[in-house]
């Protein structure tokens, strides 16, 4: 009969659509032997043809890292990572020389097609671009190496540099040297040090004085090879009066083992400049029983160095077995401002410990934190935040709103807000709520013919809307879809 057919359709759809990015691509990959020691670091640096100062930067970080204990303060259970079982460099094999689109392995183009990310500039111009959007330039990174960066020439006309990190080291060594490690020093923390030692590739962005970047810049990270880690490094510099909106997306195949992703993102914002950084993080979260999944242990920080500079972090976190991530703002310039908008969804056995730090050093600096945690299944979801106001920072304002939504009785929501206010003129507000999904809202949807799965998707989407609305339009829709996908099977 009709009704049984339709309900089995729904079931099918729900059970089969778990993680649609879980495929692997068959590309010839060069992987260096597993394990980590100074020789491995020298090998990575040599493969990339790096100058000596960068090798020393790596070695210095490595030597410090060796002496550090593994941090245990997060509300996550990271299984001990055996660094001898990880290969620290993997890259699809390819020809030497500059990378134009035609030279990119067609398998890789197909992979990104499947992920819905266009690597063809012409396609972008013709069909995909929607009304009101500005289009985007993409840096596509598979495992340790950047594959291609689109729209490079068009951007170059404006003096904008958008390329892979490795390329930047070769073409703009002075710029890289000037800014690398200035926001996140190699000795900042355990995982930042690890990244500084072994980082392979990532994106580099430089927006010159007074330039408003006319399109979204996007990096897509994909782990493909097995038994490897990804350690990308992103460095964004916005010079005086510059503006850029940058987006980062990530996926990985489904694998039984845990994969390590330890990235560092540094953003340097000069006078009156503004950077918007958006992340849609969808690394493989592991299966229903918590087997496999990516360990996402990243350090992201922006330095608002100039007066009236502005940074805005927006993140939608749905993937990874473990997320450990606190995009932070150091508000050094007077009248600088930092924003953090976050939705973190955890399901099954995922664990997320995420939040932000707002370090107010400049006078009249402002910050705003909106965090929405959604936990389902047996997952654990924590907000960890620090608002710090230095003694000399007069007239600081902060507003923090921190909401948790529980979709199951077996999941946990936790908040660890810390305030360190050393100036009496600061106005700091904090609001927090924890709620369960509202049965009356669910029933109202059901009564209109919207079944439980869709209803929860709608309600959670509404709950997250304030944050998702901050994403560039091109990605807001995708993020909404991801949200509903990641909470499927979570009702009841």
């Amino acid at each position: 009969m009709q009704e049984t057919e339709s309900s089995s359709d729904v079931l099918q759809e729900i059970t089969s659509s778990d993680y649609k990015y879980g495929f692997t691509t068959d590309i010839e990959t060069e992987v260096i032997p597993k394990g980590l020691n100074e020789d491995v670091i020298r090998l990575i640096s040599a493969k990339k043809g790096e100058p000596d100062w960068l090798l020393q930067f790596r070695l210095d970080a490595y030597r410090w890292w060796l002496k550090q204990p593994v941090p245990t303060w997060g509300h996550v259970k990271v299984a001990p990572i055996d660094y001898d079982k990880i290969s620290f460099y993997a890259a699809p094999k390819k020809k030497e020389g500059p990378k134009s689109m035609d030279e990119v392995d067609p398998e890789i183009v197909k992979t990104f097609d499947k992920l819905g990310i266009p690597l063809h500039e012409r396609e972008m111009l013709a069909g995909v671009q929607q009304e009101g959007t500005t289009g985007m330039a993409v840096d596509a990174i598979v495992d340790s190496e950047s594959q291609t960066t689109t729209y490079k020439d068009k951007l170059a006309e404006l003096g904008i540099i958008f390329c892979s990190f490795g390329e930047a080291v070769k073409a703009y060594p002075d710029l890289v040297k000037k800014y690398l490690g200035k926001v996140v020093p190699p000795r900042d923390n355990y995982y930042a040090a690890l990244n500084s030692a072994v980082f392979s590739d990532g994106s580099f962005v430089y927006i010159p004085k007074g330039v408003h970047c006319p399109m979204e810049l996007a990096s897509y990270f994909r782990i493909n090879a097995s038994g490897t880690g990804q350690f990308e490094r992103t460095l964004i510099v916005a010079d005086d009066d510059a503006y850029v909106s940058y987006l980062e997306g990530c996926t990985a195949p489904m694998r039984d083992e845990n994969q390590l992703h330890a990235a560092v993102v540094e953003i340097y914002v000069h006078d009156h400049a503004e950077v918007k950084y958006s992340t849609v993080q969808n690394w493989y979260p592991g299966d229903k029983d918590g087997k496999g999944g990516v360990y996402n242990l990243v350090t992201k920080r922006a330095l608002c160095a100039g007066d009236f500079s502005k940074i805005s972090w927006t993140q939608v976190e749905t993937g990874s077995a473990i997320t450990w991530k606190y995009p932070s703002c150091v508000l050094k310039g007077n009248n600088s401002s930092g924003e953090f908008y976050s939705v973190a969804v955890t399901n099954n056995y995922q664990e997320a410990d995420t939040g932000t730090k707002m370090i107010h050093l400049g006078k009249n600096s402002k910050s705003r934190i909106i965090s929405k945690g959604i936990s389902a299944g047996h997952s654990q979801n924590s907000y960890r935040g620090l608002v710090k106001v230095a003694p000399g920072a007069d007239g600081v304002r902060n507003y923090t709103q921190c909401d948790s939504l529980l979709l199951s009785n077996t999941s946990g929501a936790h908040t660890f807000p810390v305030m360190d206010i050393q100036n009496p003129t600061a106005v700091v507000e904090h609001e927090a709520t924890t709620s369960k999904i509202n049965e009356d809202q669910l029933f109202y949807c059901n009564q209109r013919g919207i079944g439980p799965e869709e209803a929860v998707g709608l309600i959670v989407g509404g709950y997250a809307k304030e944050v998702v609305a901050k994403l560039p339009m091109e990605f807001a829709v995708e993020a909404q879809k991801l949200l509903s996908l990641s909470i499927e099977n979570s009702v009841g």
Partner: protein
Amino acid sequence: MSLLEIHNLHASIGGKEILRGIDLTINPGEIHAVMGPNGAGKSTLSAILTGNPAYTVTEGSILYKGKDLLAMPPEQRSWEGIFLSFQYPVEIPGVSMVNFMRTAVNEHRKYNNQPALSATEFLRLMREKRSVVQLDNKLANRSVNEGFSGGEKKRNEIFQMAMLEPTLSILDETDSGLDVDALRIVSDGVNRLKSAERASIVITHYQKLLEYIEPQFVHIVYKGRIVENGGPELANRIFAEGFDWVKEKAE
């Protein structure tokens, strides 16, 4: 065949028995008014008909179009044409009316093996139905019921009813809190849906709505039972004399 047959329905919430043996039959084309003092169990009856999981049916049966209604999940009852205009419509922050209604309409269409409406088709339908209940475009662009006034919420319920064109509509005090103009507009929306195949249950405390909607049957609920059945004259007697005589007779 009757559209709805309720037999000896008992239901409880939180272990407390609220409905204590309801019998009611509704045929296609009929309009039934349900009246009764506060707390008699009228809203509970509408909750049971629509499958609200907060309530438990302890005894009795309900046939809808000859099928076992109690075996259907709430959303399927909706797809099968049962609509409830809630006494207290719920707010859903962040979910736009457009998105909400589009999902609802397309789920209905999926159930009936019809293709989903395109964005343009849907917006056209929405505009048409919005004009029926004179629902402001601004309201239609806001989140579901969020920040709507009491009367706007009720009007929004009738708008949704117009969109979904139910076979059996249940109006739980939709007239409460409406101004005179809104009451006429809402009644109009209900009357437009009148047909030989459809039926309505109208729960109300006021005469005005019944003047517009003109029910053929009137039932009085008291302490979880239907204690009086009649025509429009029964409603008029309640409006004139109140419920005291009903209570005395029932005790």
